[in-house]
């Protein structure tokens, strides 16, 4: 078995503000993500939670007009430091997207190890890496006999778990998930939630979700984001999931988690 580092990192965002052009979409967000914890980011559409997620592994800067203030610390080191390379940051902090996006021209096997080729890394035993990664994403048993099939032959839920395996193959310390289940059926959703639970033993997870039940099921702590017409998004409440959902301090959090708006 390939040795994974099995060491999660702690991540913390300090005073993050974000702009697109002159329009500010986030104002002064500070959150800490302790190692091996699952943090859920919730809030209505357009509150900036997905944007925030993208600042955590420097995907944000790919948008031409993007602007940023504040810093993101990975084990105490600022990932936006000029000396840091975005490539290294993205390898340490993996990401799973809203819609499953396996590479259509590659087989299942090639998809899993695509990160190695894409980042120009070598692995002594790729076959083992494929198996370990697929096992960790709980999809090994379903695909072990068809590793050379095209990735698009899988169902939507399987494709998403393949994408998780693809990220895991890079041995990330932190995994960011942007509404990973929003395009999936309940069965697939449940399996991915189980996977998240298992993965949290070896990494730190931040998940954006619209689904209140999901946030309660998978996360240790929850941050509630909110934006208004002319006010950029920000965190209204941040705490233990149990507390945010059952004894929210802010009345708006109470309204949101109980389905009064959003």
């Amino acid at each position, binding site marked *: 078995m390939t040795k994974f580092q099995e060491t999660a990192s702690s991540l913390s965002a300090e005073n993050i503000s974000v702009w697109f052009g002159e329009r500010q979409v986030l*104002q*002064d967000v500070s959150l800490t993500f302790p190692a091996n914890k699952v943090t859920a980011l919730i809030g209505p559409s357009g509150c900036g939670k997905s944007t925030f997620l993208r600042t955590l592994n420097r995907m*944000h800067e790919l948008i*031409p007009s993007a602007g940023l203030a*504040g810093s993101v610390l990975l084990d105490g080191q600022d990932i936006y430091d000029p000396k840091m*390379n975005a490539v290294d940051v993205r390898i340490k902090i993996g990401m799973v997207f809203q819609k499953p996006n396996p590479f259509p021209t590659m087989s299942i096997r090639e998809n899993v190890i695509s990160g190695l080729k894409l980042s120009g890394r070598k692995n002594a035993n790729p076959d083992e890496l494929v198996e370990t990664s697929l096992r960790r994403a709980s999809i090994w048993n379903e695909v072990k006999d068809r590793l050379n099939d095209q990735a698009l032959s899988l169902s939507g839920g399987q494709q998403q778990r393949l994408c998780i395996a693809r990220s895991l193959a890079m041995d990330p310390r932190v995994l960011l998930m942007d509404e990973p289940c929003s395009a999936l059926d309940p069965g697939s959703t449940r399996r991915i939630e189980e996977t998240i639970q298992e993965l949290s033993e070896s990494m730190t997870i931040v998940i954006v979700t619209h689904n209140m039940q999901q946030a309660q099921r998978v996360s240790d702590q929850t941050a509630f984001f909110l934006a208004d017409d002319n006010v950029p998004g*920000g965190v209204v409440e941040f705490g233990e999931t149990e507390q945010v959902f059952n004894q929210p*301090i802010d009345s708006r959090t109470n309204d949101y988690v109980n389905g009064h708006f959003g």
Partner: protein
Amino acid sequence: MPNRQVDIQPERRKLSVGPLSTGDKWFFRTTTIASNFAFILVALILVFLFAKAWPAIQQQGPAFIYGNTWDVESDPPVMQLGPMIWGSLQVAFLGILIATPMAISAAYAIVFMLPQRLAKIATTLIDLLAALPSVVIGLWGLLSFAPVAANWAKLLNQTLGFIPLFQITGDEPTYIDSPFIAGWIVAVMIVPIITSVTREIFSQTDSGLINGALALGGSRFSVFSRVILPTSAPGIVGGILLGLGRAIGETVAILYVLQLTFDINWYQILEPHGGAVASWILSRFGEATEKEFEGLMAAGLVIFIVTLIINGLANVIVSRAAGRNR
């Protein structure tokens, strides 16, 4: 609970958007250089044409554009492009006049009348027409089409000959080699481009709007004239401009079917004389002296600048209309 008031503007950080590695640096550098080639090419064409054309431009002066003598035997040679420029415009205008109803009809049929499968076949046929080499169209125009079109010309002359446009001076007219036939040939060459632009524009008309008009008791005709045409007009104009650009640049096909003369033919489109700058360049090129060669370069410069402006304008209009400005 963070402060949600935006009073204090935090300082923005500089985000690195540049290359991620040495490979990336070369990747971006190469593609940027490649993209600059578009500018370089335009500049090179201008510079090289201008360099060769300069002596002629200097010597002929503005009369190069409007004068109507081309005498390279005299010393200094007189080279004036007037009749050819007028002829180019005349043929292009006739071509557009003939092509536009055909193109709009074909686009209407493809988008609003034909079932999907037939529409696809029709689209392919139009694209195929666009792919036909102009030398093939010219061959067909000279040997197959001209005799037929001569009949049409004869008919026009005999029935509508009292209109100056269709008059022919001189005896025993042949009805061929005329701007009329050249106009048809140009029309065949530009129908595809106007059709494909119009089709794209038509297919973007809001079907909700059409449904609404029909629900209010509109007929097919009123929907076409009040809904489809007004919303599509700018795009169609752009398509026609693209066609105009092609028509002005058309060389070989026109050369086969038009008698080029410096006796300017203002409007008698059935007469066997007319002009076309591009064709003139090709027809003179073989026997040109160094001086005449410079004059032909100047003629090339004229069509290059004119077509560049028309095409640039047309593309801006079309992409605006089609909402393709990404």
